[in-house]
């Protein structure tokens, strides 16, 4: 067998045939789901209830100001700023008499600072109350007002994207956002996780002093590439298992949905979401929702997204993995050296993440376009843009330029890292800085 494939096989097997691998592979998605669920739960539950005493000089807020679960407006007698706390109110709202539509300030006082969201809610509610009052003054009845409010929510926005041949495809910004952010985030995490794995592996070989035995039978470059490829394969295996796991869960979930609802969903699919009024078929709320999720998933170009994801994962990993390997090779036993040497590698990754989180909102700014072509940031940023559609948002030439520069980029970084690695792996007892590493990388021999 070829030497490099032997090394790859060892690196791969020693990591995959490990209880820890199975455990992290299974637990990471659960942790992810748990994290999202937890965050949502606390976002909903974590709001403080406010009991607000309103002192209104105008007299109409009592009828128009609407309370909800978190904001309880009350209009007690004899409450002022000196005693509202002792009477059990968390805040007091002082509304002076309005003089026509002249600019005026109203004041909320509270013991604790009010959060941004609560502040917005209070001012929204006050504005709504004033609006209602003005509409009533203009001669509209309360009942009319409420029924108009309710009826007016009939229109729905559907964004379409040009796909040539006079066909426009429905697009879903929310889905694009989710897919773009999710895949960018995954690439970000994996670069750190697998990059650090490469670095630790190289450090282990160096501190164990096995490196010298190894390089007397294989080229240092083979040793480095074997490790990088082997660990990359571990990463791909992990993704594959996750994909299988997710599809398994989705299929399992479908079996849990009652058959009659699934029947309704397939009827909806048949009529493309619009059941003719004369038809016998009916669709309940649940079926409507499932159909909506299904059809918005269908708007994404999954083969392109998954294909590009794999490409950018592999490319980005190779680009940064070899740099991590180079750092690992110059570090001695002291892990703190590794920390400081890693900064020039981690900074661009973190920076790319920031660009990515903006690009996912606005995929066509010039910084997003450039960052998706430059190999330092392209794996993350391009994934954020690709979710919005190829070739609609990302023209083919940009995709090609980005892919080519990433391939060129990782060829360059592996070549440089190989030279640093060759010198560093056998160097003990000497602290090496980036200046020296650059010298090794670019010297001719």
């Amino acid at each position, binding site marked *: *067998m070829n*030497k490099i494939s*032997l*090394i790859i096989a*060892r690196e791969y097997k*020693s990591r995959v045939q490990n209880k820890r691998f199975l455990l992290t592979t299974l637990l990471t998605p659960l942790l992810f789901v748990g994290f999202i669920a937890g965050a949502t739960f606390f976002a909903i539950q974590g709001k403080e209830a406010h009991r607000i005493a309103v002192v209104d000089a105008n007299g109409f807020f009592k009828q128009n100001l609407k309370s909800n679960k978190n904001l309880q407006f009350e209009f007690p007698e004899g409450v002022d700023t000196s005693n509202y706390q002792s009477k059990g109110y968390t805040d007091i709202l002082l509304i002076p008499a309005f003089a026509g539509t002249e600019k005026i300030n109203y004041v909320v006082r509270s013991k604790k600072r009010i959060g941004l969201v609560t502040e917005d809610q209070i001012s929204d509610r006050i504005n709504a109350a004033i609006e209602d009052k003005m509409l009533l003054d203009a001669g509209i009845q309360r009942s009319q007002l409420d029924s108009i409010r309710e009826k007016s929510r009939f229109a729905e926005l559907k964004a379409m994207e040009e796909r040539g041949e006079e066909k426009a495809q429905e697009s879903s910004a929310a889905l694009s956002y989710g897919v773009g952010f999710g895949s960018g985030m995954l690439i970000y995490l994996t670069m750190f996780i697998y990059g650090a794995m490469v670095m630790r592996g190289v450090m*282990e*070989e160096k501190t*164990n*002093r*096995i*490196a*010298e*035995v*190894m*390089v*007397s*039978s*294989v*080229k240092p470059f083979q040793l480095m590439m074997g490790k990088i490829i082997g660990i990359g394969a571990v990463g791909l295996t992990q993704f594959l298992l996750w994909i299988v796991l997710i599809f398994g869960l989705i299929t399992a979930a479908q079996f849990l949905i009652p058959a009659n609802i699934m029947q309704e969903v397939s009827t909806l699919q048949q009529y493309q979401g619009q059941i003719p009024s004369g038809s016998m078929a009916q669709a309940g709320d649940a079926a409507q929702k499932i159909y909506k999720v299904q059809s918005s998933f269908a708007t994404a170009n999954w083969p392109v997204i998954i294909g590009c994801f794999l490409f950018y994962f592999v490319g980005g990993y190779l680009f940064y993995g070899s740099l991590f390997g180079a750092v690992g090779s110059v570090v001695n036993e002291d892990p703190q050296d590794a920390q400081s040497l890693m900064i020039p590698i981690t900074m661009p990754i973190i920076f790319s993440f920031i660009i990515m989180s903006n690009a996912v909102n606005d995929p066509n700014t010039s910084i997003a376009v450039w960052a998706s072509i430059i190999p330092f940031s392209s794996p993350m940023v391009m994934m954020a843009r690709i979710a919005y559609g190829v070739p609609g948002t990302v023209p083919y030439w940009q995709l090609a330029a980005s892919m080519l520069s990433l391939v060129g980029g990782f060829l360059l970084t592996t070549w440089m890292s190989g030279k640093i690695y060759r010198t560093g792996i*056998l*160097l*003990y*007892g*000497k602290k090496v800085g980036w200046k020296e590493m650059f010298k090794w990388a670019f010297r001719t*021999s």
Partner: protein
Amino acid sequence: MDPILQLSSLKKHYATQKAVDDISFSIERGSIFGLLGPNGAGKTTLLRMITGIFFPDSGSITLDGKKFEPLEDGIKIGYMPEERGLYKKMKIGEQALYLAQLKGMEKAEAMEKIKYWFRKLEMETWWNKKVEDLSKGMSQKLQFVTTVLHEPKLIILDEPFSGLDPLNANLIKDEIFGLAQKGSTVIFSTHRMEQVEEICDHIVLVNLGKKILDGTVKDIKQQFKAHRFALELNHQDALPQHPSFELVDQNASALTVQINPGFQSNDVLQAFMGSGHQIVSFKEILPSLNEIFIRLVEGTAATSRAFQSQN
């Protein structure tokens, strides 16, 4: 027979020092060769060039009659570095197999050889143990096995006995002799001189990157002998005076005499016989390699250099 390894004018300079400065020597097939030198003399750099880990700045290495090609000739060399290294988390059997395959052996052949060596060194029960569970001596044995497994023509051992108890050291020593008898050449790098005297046929001493001594152990001892003899007599009364020798040392059982230039050992014996003493024994005192080593190295800058970084 042409030598297995021939070095000519090898040089390797680092930024701050000349680690190996114009060293040439050759090693006969089937010999056990000692490469000696104080710490920091350039031994490791020299060995790394011979194993193809470093490229020499200039000079040439000829292995087995051909120019040394690090990539193809890996199978001909077995190298056990001074700093031992194994994958700690790997099982012992797998590790030996992996290293053998990296040297270019086929799996089946490697398995057979591993089993043979494990049996020989009583390591059979270790197969599924991990390296981190081994004692230092045990992992030393494993390291030795992985070095010689592929039956290299040239075996390079850097301090092979450090960390071994006398029993295991003898076991390994016997294996080294056995390998040499089967035709392998052994380069043995150390600064333990008593081992060198016992094992090596031929030695080279390097210091400060230069070769300062080259020859067989016997020749070198002859070369550095001080013409001193230990003399044991039936009694030590009325010792004779004679221009052929000086008395250097005297104790209850023996005298140490230094033969003066221009005289032979027989002149000394005649002087003692003439004075009516019975000679019980008469033996030349040859310097130990240790003494030669210290004499040659002491006083040079070697000790201070040993603490410089090995860039």
